[in-house]
């Protein structure tokens, strides 16, 4: 298996408190991500699962350098991402896109869906003719299950599930290799969340995408993951193939998480 993304000893600390009114002493630091290392193979879904505050969202954002790591190493197809600046970083970034949790907060309410989805093209392929841009936008919208009429409408006219489809279309329009999805279905209703999970799986097969999938939910992760990393207090406590983590966990915390999942009686 070819490695797409290599992460070595990634670390991020924040200053604790430290606001104008804080009584806590300066210099107290809180470690959000504490030396995490892993590799993601091309075409797989690498899931990171953990409870709130475990550092999974900070980790996700560092992978795209939306948050700057304090230290560590980040390689994409062997190239050192942390060494890149300016145009070189921008060129690399189009290969890696993010799908966010809240489809209500992550789409600009004043922009039409056509503009939202085609904006990455305007930035990364400015020489594209407007006809070609429209064609690419329409095609990707259609692929995620939205009609041409969506182009001229605003985000508030769409349901949560449709908005998440718009977010996915925007992430895919540059034909990236890696998608980092941070809780992509946790704000959605069950029936719609399942639609989005299946769509993500179809798109992965069709475009040969690689996913880093961040979630608090083991049942959700169980549907999509090739491998699962269980994160707690900034560290991976267990990493393994999905079946092994779900059915033969070695770590006590993994077992605790699994046993807390409310189960459905099946006929």
């Amino acid at each position, binding site marked *: 298996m070819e490695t797409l993304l290599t992460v070595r000893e990634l670390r991020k600390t924040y200053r604790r408190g430290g606001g104008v009114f804080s009584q806590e002493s300066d210099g107290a630091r809180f470690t959000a991500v504490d030396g995490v290392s892993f590799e993601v193979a091309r075409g797989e879904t690498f899931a990171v699962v953990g409870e709130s505050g475990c550092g999974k969202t900070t980790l996700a954002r560092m992978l795209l350098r939306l948050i700057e790591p304090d230290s560590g190493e980040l390689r994409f197809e062997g190239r050192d991402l942390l060494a890149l600046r300016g145009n070189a970083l921008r060129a690399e970034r189009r290969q890696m896109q993010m799908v966010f949790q809240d489809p209500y907060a992550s789409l600009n309410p004043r922009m039409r869906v056509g503009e939202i989805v085609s904006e990455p093209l305007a930035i990364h392929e400015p020489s594209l003719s407007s006809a070609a841009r429209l064609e690419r936008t329409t095609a990707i919208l259609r692929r995620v299950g939205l009609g041409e009429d969506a182009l001229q409408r605003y985000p508030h006219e769409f349901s949560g599930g449709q908005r998440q489809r718009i977010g996915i279309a925007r992430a895919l329009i540059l034909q990236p290799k890696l998608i980092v999805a941070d809780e992509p279905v946790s704000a959605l209703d069950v*029936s719609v969340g399942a*639609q989005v999970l299946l769509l993500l799986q179809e798109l992965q097969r069709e475009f040969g995408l690689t996913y880093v999938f961040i979630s608090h939910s083991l049942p959700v992760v169980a549907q999509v993951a090739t491998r699962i990393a269980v994160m707690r207090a900034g560290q991976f406590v267990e990493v393994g193939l999905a079946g092994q983590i779900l059915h033969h966990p070695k770590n006590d915390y993994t077992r605790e998480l699994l046993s807390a999942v409310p189960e459905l009686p099946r006929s």
Partner: protein
Amino acid sequence: MSTLLEVRGLTVELPTAAGWVRPVNEVSLRIGAGESLGLVGESGSGKTMLSLALMGLLPLGARVSGEASLATKTSTKKLTVLSEREWRDVRGAEIAMVFQEPMTSLNPVMRIGAQVEEAIRAHQPKLPGNEVKRRAIDALLRAAVPEPEARAEQFPHQLSGGLRQRAMIAMALAAGPRLLIADEPTTALDVTVQKQILDLLDGLRRELQLGLLFITHDLGVVAQVAERVAVMYAGRIIEEGPAREVLARPLHPYTQGLLKASPTLKRGALTPIPGTVPQLTALPPGCAFEPRCHLRLAECTATVPAFRLIDSDHAARCILI
């Protein structure tokens, strides 16, 4: 089991720009003392509006018809016709509610203990101060808040999400209600904390013979806390029965679809329901689930299906059963 709450044909209508809509449409249900009913539905199903109607907290301008009667400690109250003054003796003292997000429902600038004391004083203004304090600590203790004396002195932001929800439960139960409405009380919590809160509510139900109306979108949670379950879709209850029975042998295609769309630790069996929940302003004629239903027949658009009893206590609103 004595009946605590009996709801018959309850309808709530709200004015919108597009005319009146019915978020709650002829809902009937019954909860006995010590019984837990799980109310399941997705967003827009009307489950929260139903709970607000039962608490007398509907938005201004809402129109209510039908019946909801509550057996109080002294008499039977018709909830739909109570005045605001009468509600004050019912809300908190007879029915209480726990909300989804404890951080937004607690007062951020008031100590936890003072907030519980407030809930007690509201119903017994003549109680001496030290007695109020003692009862507040008792309430926190009953909600399994560790070190209740120390926690009472803290502010909400100093507590974890799980502890905040315990404090909310302490407040809700402080005035001794017999019916507790819990609206997605664990949705904002981590799974390990969720389990503790569900165990706590279950224990309190048994110990205090509380009637529990547990509102959730999560079928797994229902399986854990509810003896009976009612499934709501577009304002109506479309299936009701014993939780075990409904989850293992669902009758309505929507309930079946919801189960197949719920992720479990087993991979692969996920089948989404096509389409989305209909807007209340544009409900399909006949069965509201018809446009999304893979078993639909031509007759499904004709009339709203009647609620049909299959076993002695398992019923659904579908012409196919």
